[in-house]
């Protein structure tokens, strides 16, 4: 959560220095953008239509962006190993045998708002979590790495498969947006179901009922990284 916030804020700062997005290998102010975010820029070379230039925050933003990215990736590796090792992915995230249909998905989706009161994730949560963990996060890391000139020299296929540097940058932007959408919806759902009790459960791995047996404590550590998006 800390890393993600850091990446989000610094990512935003970096975008502000060039608010135009392109498709393909190259893109600059002499070329036609795919789209432009209608905000002022921190560079006077970017035509934004605004009369003023924002302060340049790129230096520390870039330092922090890459440091937070390392930390997130390392945390992710630990989480991934722990998830497979403990069977957390298989038991809690792969949709149940009988629920792998669109009908079950839709039923769970409609029932979400009220909350079914069970302790297990429903099929909508399971597919979304799997998508975030195994699709969006790998993609955001891949598209981010494809923006590194040093890494591209080592592994040119990474950026070439994405259709070029500017395509990678645009995709990185959209995938980050999807992660933000997930985060907002996720926190909203938690809030609707009792923010503090759910957060406590997430971190300790213990259900909120006061009658919960003491034994549960030992399991806590395994699931600590559960919701660390």
């Amino acid at each position, binding site marked *: 959560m800390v890393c993600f916030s850091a990446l989000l804020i610094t990512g935003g700062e970096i975008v502000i220095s060039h608010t135009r997005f392109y498709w393909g290998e190259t893109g600059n102010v002499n070329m036609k953008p795919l789209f432009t975010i209608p905000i002022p820029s921190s560079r006077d*070379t970017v035509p934004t239509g605004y009369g003023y230039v924002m302060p340049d925050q790129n230096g520390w933003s870039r*330092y922090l962006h*890459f*440091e937070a990215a390392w930390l997130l990736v390392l945390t992710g590796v630990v989480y991934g190993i722990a998830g497979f090792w403990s069977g957390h992915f298989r038991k809690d995230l792969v949709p149940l045998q009988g629920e792998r249909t669109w009908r079950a998905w839709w039923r769970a989706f409609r029932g979400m708002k009220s909350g079914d009161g069970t302790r297990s994730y429903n099929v909508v949560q399971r597919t979304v979590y799997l998508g975030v963990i195994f699709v969006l996060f790998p993609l955001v890391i891949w598209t981010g790495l494809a923006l590194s000139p*040093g890494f*591209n020299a*080592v592994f040119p296929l990474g950026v070439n498969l994405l259709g070029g540097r500017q395509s990678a940058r645009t995709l990185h932007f959209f995938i980050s947006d999807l992660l933000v959408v997930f985060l907002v919806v996720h926190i909203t759902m938690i809030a609707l179901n009792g923010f503090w009790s759910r957060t406590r459960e997430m971190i300790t791995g213990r259900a909120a009922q006061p009658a919960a047996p*003491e034994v549960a404590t030992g399991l806590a550590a395994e699931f600590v990284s559960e919701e660390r998006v």
Partner: protein
Amino acid sequence: MNPISRRKLITGGVVTMTGMAGLAAADRIARRFGLIPPDGGGVYGPGETMTYAAQRLIGKHALAREFPRGMVSKTPFMNEVAPLSEEFKRHQAVGFKDWRLVVDGMVTRPVSLSVVDLRALAMGHQITEVVCEEGWSYIAEWIGTPLSTVLSEAGTLPQVRYIVYRSIQSDWWESIDMADALHPQTLLTWGMNDGDLPVGFGGPLRMRVPRQLGYKSVKYITHLTATDSLKRFGKGLGSASPEGGYAWYAGI
């Protein structure tokens, strides 16, 4: 909550000690093999060190992507430069014939070369992308003299670890390690897209380091210094970039 059991305390202690010993060992190994960038201190130091060390370990000799001629940008962006000095304008007025590149520091034969000398020395060319930290980019053909040729002409001593390069614009100076300095694609560029290098793009002489971001490709180069340590230059952070808040290693 249960009180922390003795076993947990011991296990936790052992894990922490192992972790700290591991970090200390990693730090020593990184120092031993020169994997810590000059701006590797401070809060952002660990991240910078990880990036620099990782890239030096997995791709020290990797080549930047080169592109077919058809992909050369028709509308490259020259970016703005600080107002050019009177001294620069005097050079420009006479076609840069008196422009000199001085090579000094830890070398056996300090030299001073004109652009004509450089052209006569060796020629390399490459079609690579200029990538700005802001996000924009363009592709051009760059023609110049490989930095490695110039360095061997001056005879760098074996203990040299960095090359410091300076622009006629005195607040622009940078440095690279020997992996980049001796890299075949690192060029002292005097030509672009089959013509002379235009002033807007850094003519008469620009350093091109295609494996790093554009800000390492300094315009209007006049001075190279070979050194074994960056401590004596500026604030000791390696270049003007970290002094202005930007990373020294821009391979990301």
